[in-house]
């Protein structure tokens, strides 16, 4: 099955997306082996290049209008004739194990348009954390879709995690909320690739917020970071500028290097999910694992990286016993 799915994704058959996600989310041993198989078949080594899709992270505090913005962004990309996959990571934490996934409701799309795919997943245990399957899903879908969006909620932790997966990260804030500014200044938050100020229809207040942000970025030595003002209410403004800024960022980065970092972070996350904090400690802690991953062959795919860590762990264990 995974071979078939891999082939369909490589042929850019977008209708494979639901089955791909079903497989990646399934945690039975058989399904996990197939997922590893799938990722291997879609790795840069197998493809002969990095997956062509642009992986974009969109994140920000709750209530800033991310979903309506995303709705406009999807329309904008579609107007540019790009296919879009959206992976929403719903903040409603798993109370009782269950979750309510309502984010897709806020994204306007034509159900007849087969070039748009939206999948909701519940966040992990932490607010803003990625769902366990999101990294693998983004990796796989980037082979077939022009744009893969990962939407998460939160400030501080969440954009760091999204930055590990995405080629470009847009942090969305609304005018008048000082948190992000404070986080930036205090160094709690890393400077994002693009900063988006919503509710540009508020006029002066939005202008003021932009000015404050630019000043803060200057003082952090990040004067080249794009700051874009958008308004999602009719008539929407700033959306094209935002998409341009994301494109410009993607053109400017060393994609291979960024994807390599993403694969290492992915391998670490998978290893930690499987073997827990103890497993990571047994290998000498996060830093040590990162160092070890950096020493691996850059051509390795994620399952191979995880296997390398596991082999290392079992060697260590046998030495100790």
């Amino acid at each position, binding site marked *: 099955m995974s071979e078939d799915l891999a082939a369909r994704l490589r042929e850019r058959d977008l209708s494979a*997306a*639901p089955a791909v*996600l*079903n497989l990646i*989310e*399934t*945690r*039975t041993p058989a*399904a996990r082996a197939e997922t590893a198989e799938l990722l291997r078949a879609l790795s840069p080594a197998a493809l002969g290049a990095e997956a062509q899709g642009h992986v974009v992270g969109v994140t920000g505090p709750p209530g800033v209008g991310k979903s309506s913005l995303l709705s406009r962004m999807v329309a904008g990309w579609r107007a540019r004739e790009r296919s879009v996959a959206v992976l929403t990571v719903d903040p*409603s934490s798993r*109370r*009782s*194990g*269950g*979750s*309510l*996934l*309502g984010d*897709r*409701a*806020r994204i*306007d799309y034509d*159900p*007849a348009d087969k070039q748009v*795919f*939206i*999948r*909701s997943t*519940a966040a992990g245990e932490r607010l803003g954390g990625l769902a366990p399957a999101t990294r693998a899903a983004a990796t796989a879908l980037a082979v077939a879709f022009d744009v893969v969006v990962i939407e998460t909620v939160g400030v501080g932790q969440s954009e760091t995690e999204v930055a590990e997966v995405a080629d470009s990260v847009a942090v969305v804030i609304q005018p008048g909320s000082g948190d992000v500014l404070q986080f930036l200044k205090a160094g709690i938050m890393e400077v994002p690739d693009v900063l988006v100020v919503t509710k540009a229809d508020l006029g002066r207040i939005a202008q003021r917020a932009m000015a404050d942000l630019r000043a803060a970025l200057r003082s952090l030595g990040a004067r080249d970071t794009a700051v874009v003002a958008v308004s999602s*209410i*009719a008539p929407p403004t700033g959306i094209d500028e935002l998409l341009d800024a994301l494109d410009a960022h993607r053109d400017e980065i060393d994609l291979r290097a960024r994807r390599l970092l993403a694969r290492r972070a992915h391998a670490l996350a998978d290893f930690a999910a499987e073997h827990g904090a103890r497993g990571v400690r047994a290998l000498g802690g996060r830093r040590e694992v990162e160092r070890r991953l950096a020493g691996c062959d850059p051509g390795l795919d994620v399952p191979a990286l995880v296997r390398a860590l596991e082999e290392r762990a079992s060697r260590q264990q046998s030495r100790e016993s």
Partner: protein
Amino acid sequence: MAEAPSPRLPERDRPWMMRTYAGHSDAKRSNELYRRNLAKGQTGLSIAFDLPTQTGYDPGHELARGEVGKVGVSIAHRGDMRELLHDIPLDQMNTSMTINATAAWLLSLYIVAAEDEHVAPEKLQGTTQNDILKEYLSRGTYAFPPGPSMRLIADTIAYTVTHVPKWNPINICSYHLQEAGATPVQEIAYSMSNAIAVLDAVRERVDQELMGSVFGRISFFVNAGVRFVEEHAKLRAMSEMWDWIGRNRYNVEDPKQRRFRYGVQVNSLGLTEAQPENNVYRIALEALAVTLGRSARARAIQLPAWNEALGLPRPWDQQWSLRLQQILAYETDLLEYPDIFEGSKVMEGLVHELVEGAKEEMARVAELGGAVEAVDYMKASLVESHRERWRRIESGELTVVGMNRFESTEPSPLTAAEDGGILVVDPEVERERQEAVEAWRAERDADAVRRALDELARVARDDSENIMPASIAAARAGVTTGEWAQTLRDAFGEYRAPTGVGEAAAVSSDEVGELREEVERVSEALGRRLKFLVGKPGLDGHSNGAEQIAVRARDAGMDVVYEGIRLTPAQIATSAAQEGVHVVGLSILSGSHGELIPAVLEALREAGVEVPVVVGGIIPESDAAALREAGVAAVYTPKDWDLNGMMRDIVSLVAERNSLAAA
């Protein structure tokens, strides 16, 4: 020795206005019904519009499918309105129209229909419901985003206060808040906060000296549940608060303008499908809540019919409800006395409690920036209250006779009739209406229509202008309901209201304990968490049921995809496919299940989704059988009030379909 003052009024009071919420199919059939009702002693009209008219779609629109003429009459243009009111004297009639998102439009049609009969706007009496915030919170027939919607409301108020001075341009509704689960305190607080948001918006659009008249034209539409003593106290509390708001917030000096005027439809939420004849008693007691005390008595009353939890009421069912009002007004001695609760310590205490509670809750709404900004908060609070009410019914803390207590019953002769005791709208109506509107379009002056729509679009985009004159001109030119609304949708954008489900608290684990284990077990076997799509196809905005199902499924440990109301079959099928759900649940209360459910099943098949589909709603047994025949795995109606039982069914359906051993 001085003679004791008489406990009676010098003269018996005039009765309140008696109405029946009525209308179905087309203008002609509804007009016949109205004239029959008036002949039976009904003293005012209450027009029920179908959902396409309420949400601004013509009968041929994709979203109108299955809904044309169902829960009310389909009105698309001035010709329809004229036929609807044929032979009804508009200079004497008092007409209430349950219309919100498209209120400015239906009022325009009414004004033009009166014009045709040479009745001047100054003579028109009646009410447009026109309360959009409660549509976001409960009823679901909104069309535009909050900002432009509030502007439309302010425009109709500003226009009528000078041009149609006897019209009540808005009925602030606490009714639907109670239907959505509001406690009395929430009902008072949210409706008063809503009124304040409206008045604040109007204040910016009229001369300040008119604010007294504006305040005086605001009326309310309230609900009364079966706890009729407390419900009466609620109305007294609302009178007190309205007077207080008028005096302190808007400096209204004339006490007449500060009077709390309200119409009422008593509670439908508490009506049961089980032993439906008992609903007659409930309705009678609820009618007492709004009539007993003279100082807080309703101005206008419409009563539901005994069979509302079964389907649409027939003319005879509505007559039965009207007779109840007439007995209360003409046979009993109710109207012979001054206020019978004056001086009652109990009543005073209850009122005090409610006023204090409501003020506190209003302060919370004000802190969030007022009712418009607080829609998310209020919606979540209502879903939470409703969840709590349901929990109390399930646990038996709250008794509902015939439903969770005293359940044994003899077969009811009332539902034994061939029609099952309900009205069934002729399915041909939809096609007839589509053809009639096409014919109307072909005959009108196309240039005049285009000019009228261009002008409407211009005015819509200019916030400083009033929408009414351009709407009236459009009505005269022969514009249709769908064209008017689409022009505004283009200018204002569309909107999806919050669902409120994400914030609802979880039920305690001992109530879903075993169920949760079962969900875990099946999820484990599936390899990923059981995923459930809850969908509301069509225009029906009654989302309480779907919301409670979604919340309970989450509490039971499922991943639930819930996107709110008004989805096309294609949207539901696309979501089900993309989300990889294991089961789909559909909810419809408007009676359009016969058309919409098969359409969803077909769309799911086309999308390659092969999962069990369950359906909930007001669905007569004969229809339920047909749905099962068409491939629906299970059908639930209001008598299936045990949500956990329903969840267990759903889990075993998924287990079965995936060839997993059931527990």
